[in-house]
């Protein structure tokens, strides 16, 4: 039964919309402080080297220079990292990747500092560069971080049943290897941050394009050797993040803070696009080897999976990203016998970390390609094979978790998608079409004139394909970390309110979602909710804004806060109206009413005034802690996440068999995110996520030469434009769940993780060929390999 909501699931205008459409919203680079200095990074043009000496003599006395800041200026931790502290704020002993910064020049004029930069003499000894992730664990591989015995960052095994017996009992076995490339987040706003020393002993204030203010606070405090509360981090309006403004921003904030401390003046660091792409972390490239055994009836018997993820130079979030991979590597399928090894390794490539999807888009591409191959082998349709093996209520995952306490809607989302598109009919017809024998072309020595039917008929150049992909995804952090969130709600005596949650607005629209939740519980005008600035001084650490956890975790905290206020208001009103505790009141349309006696009614603002006059506090902290989850490291068994969401995306493509170009004509995206709270926001997540997913599938790739990225700006790195993708149809199946506000769960990442896999399957349906290496760009389709320049020269040089 659906609750009768006033605001939930309706179209509500964004909380922060007005300032964004008028250009008033203040992003990090829009802040200027009196007396502020700017900074320029000093790098070494190699991916791997030991630093012998840095000679600043040529610039030291230059009037354009206020200060040189390097590792010797750091009072506290010189290296940072969530699990392993392997990433230097300023590199001092060695260079591990091209993005490394050895020093920062600080002064008033950016241009003048750039000119000085070239005069610094850095004496370094080059070391062999490790750029191939599959060679990182070889005996003779160069070791990136000497403090560890080899280049393994992390290794997650998962052992279930007995794979050898499983393969023995299989009628068929397929083995394939898949790869995915480095992917840039491509937020349109490059990084910027300013550090300002505060008066007396108040410490430092930092304002920047920061995704996770509390993480930044932890890093800056460690680097300065200060107590946490002496470091105040404020998030400026954030111009996109997608997981990307975490570690990089922590490092930049720390550099700015050290420089502010040294100079006594505000220091702003602003990156241009080249700096951003060079130094910021990216999505992990994966090499994935899958072996699957299955029977004639389609039932999967065993899966053996070996995955190597390129962590690049620093461990960053690799231990978390690859953990999600090990949990979800077999896909949403029942497999009794599983043997999975997921490893993240160091190389000298750009380091990799969190990126929307977080270790899922890569294995989904592999496992969903494989499921289609199985279907073709058994002469089934893709939906049939998934129906046989897909999760249902009570299914057991690879980590031996029983799926219960929520609607296991995997097959429901798939059926919704295929009904919407006449999937089977089209899939079979396209397949028939690509099986039709290609006319072979032979040269007739006698007659060298071409016949009319020797020419390619433009009509036959375009082949259509349809494909789908499905997934299950653990909501929030799971056994990765502490899962709790806080919200602050302070209702004023006139009924207006301040609201803030410890999870941060990255553009996804959580201010709006939280305002909807608050207004729904209290029946107040949503326009009367004023969302506060994200500031570590105002709200408790709620963990990072990642893992599609804003709605389920932060939303739960906001609802808790609103529920507490509502209870206090009811406790005041019920005695006044001579009602008992069990009597219900209705909070709606800015009024509170007794539904049994409609003359008993009070304006919401008047009730707040009454509470104030009675000395009742209407300021509360809401708290939401996730249920316990567990994980056995040795065997990869346990209840990994407390609940899951399900999705199916279906792609229809047109492939030009002469150019290799793929046009995405239509994507149907069916998701079960639980209850949809913010409808326009949810749809926006789908449109945006699908478009990013299509980019991952077809165009985007950072290639490297000896560890150096070739694509350093948006002319060569291809972010999808308005003309690159056809229709996207979002459909929500709102399954029930006991967790999350009214059963609202997660959506942001599921929208991205499926698209590339669905497109790849559609391309196979069109061409009859299978492709194993993303992106499926022109050369991959026509030549089955990637064309990269030998070196780093740009096309025009």
């Amino acid at each position, binding site marked *: 039964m659906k609750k009768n909501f006033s605001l939930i699931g309706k179209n509500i205008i964004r909380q922060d*919309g007005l300032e964004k459409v008028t250009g008033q919203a203040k992003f990090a680079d829009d802040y200027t402080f009196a007396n502020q200095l700017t900074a320029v990074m000093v790098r070494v043009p190699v991916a791997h080297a030991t630093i012998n000496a840095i000679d600043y003599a040529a610039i030291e006395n230059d009037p354009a220079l206020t200060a040189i800041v390097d590792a010797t200026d750091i009072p506290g931790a010189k290296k940072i990292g969530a699990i392993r502290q392997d990433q230097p704020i300023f590199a001092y002993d060695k260079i591990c990747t091209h993005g490394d910064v050895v020093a920062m020049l600080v002064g008033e004029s950016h241009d003048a500092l750039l000119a000085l930069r070239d005069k610094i003499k850095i004496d370094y000894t080059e070391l062999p560069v490790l750029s191939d992730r599959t060679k990182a664990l070889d005996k003779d591989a160069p070791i990136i971080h000497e403090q560890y015995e080899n280049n393994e960052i992390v290794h997650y095994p998962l052992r279930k049943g007995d794979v050898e017996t499983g393969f023995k009992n299989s009628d068929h076995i397929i083995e394939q290897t898949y790869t995915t490339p480095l992917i840039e987040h*491509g937020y349109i706003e490059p990084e910027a941050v300013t550090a300002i020393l505060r008066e007396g002993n108040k410490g430092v204030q930092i304002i920047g394009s920061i995704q996770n203010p509390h993480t930044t606070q932890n890093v800056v405090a460690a680097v300065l050797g200060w107590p946490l509360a002496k470091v105040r981090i404020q998030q400026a309006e954030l111009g996109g993040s997608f997981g990307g403004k975490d570690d990089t921003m922590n490092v930049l904030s720390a550099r700015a803070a050290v420089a502010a401390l040294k100079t006594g003046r505000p220091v702003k660091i602003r990156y241009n696009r080249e700096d951003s792409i060079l130094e910021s972390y990216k999505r992990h490239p994966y090499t994935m080897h899958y072996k699957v055994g299955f029977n004639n009836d389609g039932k999967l018997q065993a899966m053996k999976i070996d995955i190597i993820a390129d962590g690049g130079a620093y461990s960053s979030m690799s231990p978390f990203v690859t953990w999600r991979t090990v949990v979800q590597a077999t896909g949403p399928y029942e497999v009794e016998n599983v043997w999975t090894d997921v490893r993240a390794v160091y190389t000298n490539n750009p380091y990799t970390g969190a990126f929307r999807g977080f270790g899922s888009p890569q294995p989904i591409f592999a496992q969903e390609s494989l499921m289609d191959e199985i279907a073709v082998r058994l002469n089934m349709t893709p939906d049939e094979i998934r129906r046989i093996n897909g999760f249902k209520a009570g299914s057991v995952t690879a980590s031996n978790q029983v799926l219960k306490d929520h609607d296991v809607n995997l097959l429901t989302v798939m059926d919704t998608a295929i009904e919407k598109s006449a999937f089977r009919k089209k899939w079979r017809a396209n397949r028939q079409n690509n099986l039709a024998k290609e006319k072979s072309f032979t040269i007739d020595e006698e007659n060298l004139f071409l016949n009319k039917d020797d020419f390619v008929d433009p009509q036959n150049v375009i082949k259509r394909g349809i494909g789908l992909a499905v997934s299950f995804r653990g909501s929030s952090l799971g056994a990765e970390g502490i899962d709790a969130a806080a919200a602050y709600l302070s209702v004023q005596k006139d009924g207006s309110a301040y609201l803030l949650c410890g999870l941060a607005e990255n553009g996804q629209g959580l201010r709006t979602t939280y305002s909807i939740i608050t207004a729904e519980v209290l029946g107040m005008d949503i326009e009367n909710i004023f969302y506060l600035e994200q500031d570590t001084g105002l709200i408790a650490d709620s963990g990072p804004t990642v893992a599609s956890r804003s709605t389920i975790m932060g939303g739960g905290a906001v609802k808790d806060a609103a529920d507490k206020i509502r209870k206090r208001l009811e406790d005041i009103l019920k005695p006044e109206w001579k009602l008992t505790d069990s009597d219900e009141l209705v909070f709606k349309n800015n009024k509170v009413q007794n539904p049994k006696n409609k003359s008993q009614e009070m304006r919401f603002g008047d009730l707040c005034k009454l509470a104030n006059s009675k000395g009742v506090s209407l300021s509360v902290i809401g708290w939401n802690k996730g249920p316990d989850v567990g994980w056995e490291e040795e065997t990869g068994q346990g209840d990994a996440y407390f609940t899951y969401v399900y999705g199916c995306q279906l792609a229809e493509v047109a492939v030009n068999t002469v150019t290799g170009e793929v046009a995405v004509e239509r994507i149907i995206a069916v998701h079960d995110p639980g209850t949809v709270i913010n409808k326009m926001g949810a*749809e926006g997540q789908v449109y945006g996520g699908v478009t990013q997913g299509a980019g991952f599938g077809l165009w985007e790739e950072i290639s490297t030469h000896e560890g150096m990225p070739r694509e350093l700006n948006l002319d060569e790195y291809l972010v999808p434009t308005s003309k690159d993708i056809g229709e996207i149809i979002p459909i929500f199946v709102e399954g029930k769940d006991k967790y999350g506000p009214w059963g609202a769960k997660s959506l942001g990442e599921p929208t991205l993780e499926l698209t590339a896999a669905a497109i790849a399957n559609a391309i196979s349906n069109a061409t009859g060929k299978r492709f194993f290496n993303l992106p499926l760009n022109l050369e991959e389709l026509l030549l089955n390999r990637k064309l990269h320049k030998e070196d780093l020269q740009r096309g025009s040089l």
Partner: protein
Amino acid sequence: MPKITFNLNNKDITITTAYNRRLLDVLREELGLTGTKEGCAIGECGACTVLLNDQAVNSCLLLIGQVEGQNVLTIEGLSTKGELHPVQKKFLKHGAVQCGFCTPGMILSAHALLHKNPSPKEEEVKEAITGNLCRCTGYKQIIDAVMDVTKG
């Protein structure tokens, strides 16, 4: 340093600065108009879009000397007397804004299109904003918003 006079957001202004500064920098640093953004500095992202004599241009590729005597409109000059411009209103109505970083440029490109073609087809809207990258929205709600303006 030379004096440069041009019309900015419907007002004539004169500033003293070097001819070879980018219009983008003059707007942001000199005139405090930070609604115009920098995303790439090479004419690829459109975050720096302004209107020059009603045409959408990349202010990262224009020098201040080139706008002498011309009309420049930035996002700050779009709404008049506190009333939002129809394009701005429709962006709000359709949820065409997420992080908002591309939004000023996107709105100005849409506005430039509607100025010369008050009832564009969907393909023409896509074409008009193809130089404005948005990483958040997938463009759909933006296109819907612009199409809706034409319906009044």
